[in-house]
């Protein structure tokens, strides 16, 4: 059985290829469930073994068809590999920094084979357990992985089989060439426009470590509600994503400026979920996203209202000119290109770079149960490895009305004081106390926030 890959899937494969080449591990993503009490390892293993067998797609691999379109080869259920579950036991009073460093081990460990795309790390730390779900971005996007976990929870609770509602259908897209080339023309023009001025990047040449490091900032419901109100007043109704992007640019702008990287514009690709709300439960596997390409001048980054206005206007203009849809269509043309060459081509417009940093706001989590295998979930946060270059990203997500911010960076890219500065400035801009990282005593309560739905991933 096969599932044809879309152009966006192929771009994700190219990023995976680059990351593997640079660091040994691919374009992986980790979703972490923080739970009260000790999650039963035996139940977890039994459920997973039963559950994953329904999805042979999990053990597939990419290949090229006789018509040259790349596809995901899906092997028979009999050839399924059991999911890899690794357990860690930390001290009862282990600090979150210790948990985070264990989580970092998980996300930096490459998969064992080309057919492995999913792994689980279960961490016990006193009265809290953390289940880290590591997945290959070629297989899922973040929203898809959350829905997958949701199905696992629902099946475990109700014993209802949700696997038959999943859609894996995707055509080879070997028609409507004129439409694709027309879209390609517009995307190319946009890329040329982006490359007109010099762009700002942090140097990667000094990086010797090949691991990603993370900082997590977690807001409680009251803090989240307050920052959403502030965004509502300063950026407008349903403009939380542009607001968080503006904060992220300003936070990193100060790092660039202190390093005397004072020329050029910031280029930030913003990924967006292209699935309609109703389709989220069906389109679980592979990537359903496109991008805005935001370019910000340094003088805009100096003033928050000007920056906000610039971002909003660019998003408006790009939706009006259909850029995200054009990127989806144009990327289909790139599937003919082998991955190493595509990786090179992606870096051509910006002369060896892809972006100043990566950003996403995924909105409220698609995982919608307060429990996981009988354990109350206190939080869900994301830990993505970032494409290299730029090897740097700020990501916002929400669970049950609580905002989480993940700062992801290649080890060695930033000095310790720069990392502290990013964390403290983010905390200050988001109105949290400058306490070390995650609030482990957070409690579940219904969301009070205004912006819901599919969000932008």
């Amino acid at each position, binding site marked *: 059985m096969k599932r044809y890959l879309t152009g966006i899937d192929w771009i994700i494969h190219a990023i995976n290829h680059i990351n593997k080449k640079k660091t040994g591990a691919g374009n992986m993503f980790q979703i972490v469930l923080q739970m009260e009490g000790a999650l039963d390892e035996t139940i977890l293993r039994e459920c997973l073994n039963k559950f994953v067998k329904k999805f042979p797609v999990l053990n597939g691999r990419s290949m090229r068809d006789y018509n040259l379109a790349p596809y995901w080869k899906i092997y028979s259920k009999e050839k399924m590999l059991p999911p890899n579950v690794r357990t860690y036991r930390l001290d009862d009073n282990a600090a979150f920094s210790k948990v985070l460093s264990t989580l970092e081990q998980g996300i930096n460990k490459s998969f064992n084979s080309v057919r492995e795309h999913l792994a689980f790390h279960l961490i016990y730390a006193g009265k809290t357990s953390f289940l880290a779900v590591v997945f290959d971005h070629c297989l899922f996007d973040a929203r898809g992985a959350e829905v997958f976990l949701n199905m696992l929870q629902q099946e475990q609770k109700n014993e209802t089989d949700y696997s038959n509602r999943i859609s894996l259908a995707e055509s080879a897209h070997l028609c409507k060439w004129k439409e694709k080339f027309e879209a390609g023309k517009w995307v190319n023009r946009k890329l040329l426009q982006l490359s007109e001025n010099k762009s700002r990047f942090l140097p990667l040449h000094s990086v010797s470590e090949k691991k990603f490091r993370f900082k997590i900032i977690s807001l409680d419901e009251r803090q989240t509600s307050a920052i959403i109100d502030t965004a509502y007043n300063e950026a*407008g*109704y*349903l403009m939380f994503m*542009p607001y968080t992007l503006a904060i992220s640019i300003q936070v990193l702008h100060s790092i660039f400026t202190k390093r005397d990287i004072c020329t050029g514009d910031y280029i930030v690709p913003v990924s*967006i979920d292209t699935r309609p*709300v109703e389709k989220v439960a069906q389109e679980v596997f592979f990537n359903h996203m496109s991008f805005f390409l935001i370019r910000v001048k340094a003088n805009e980054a100096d003033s928050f209202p000007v920056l906000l206005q610039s971002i909003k206007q660019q998003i408006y203009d790009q939706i*009006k000119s259909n850029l995200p849809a054009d990127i989806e269509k144009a990327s289909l043309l790139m599937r003919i290109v082998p991955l190493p060459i595509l990786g090179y081509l992606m870096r051509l417009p910006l002369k060896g770079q892809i972006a100043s940093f990566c950003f996403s706001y995924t909105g409220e989590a698609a995982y919608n149960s307060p429990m996981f295998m009988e354990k109350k979930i206190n939080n869900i946060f994301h830990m993505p490895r970032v494409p290299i270059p730029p090897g740097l990203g700020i990501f916002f997500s929400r669970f049950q009305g609580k905002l989480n911010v993940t700062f992801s960076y290649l080890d060695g890219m930033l000095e310790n004081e720069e990392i502290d500065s990013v964390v403290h400035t983010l905390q200050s801009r988001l109105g949290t106390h400058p306490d070390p990282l995650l609030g482990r005593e957070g409690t579940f309560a219904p969301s009070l926030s205004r912006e*819901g*739905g*599919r969000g932008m991933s």
Partner: protein
Amino acid sequence: MNKMSAADIEETLIQEVAVILAVDSSTISSSDPLHTLGIDSFSFVELLVFIEKTFNLKLIESGLTKEDFQTIHLLALYISRMS
């Protein structure tokens, strides 16, 4: 374009929100706040672009208050006043 009534504008907006969210228009109430319908930043801007193209109103630059955007009904009244 002939001036549309507020009711017609409301119906047009409901149809567009249904298209954006890929849901049946009968499930959309004009009195529900947009964010409770599943509208987010991306789909909201899609709606603003639709309003500009259909009613020739650039709402992103206008002096809208939060209340004007709260529901499809209030948005339709605003568009009716402005167009």
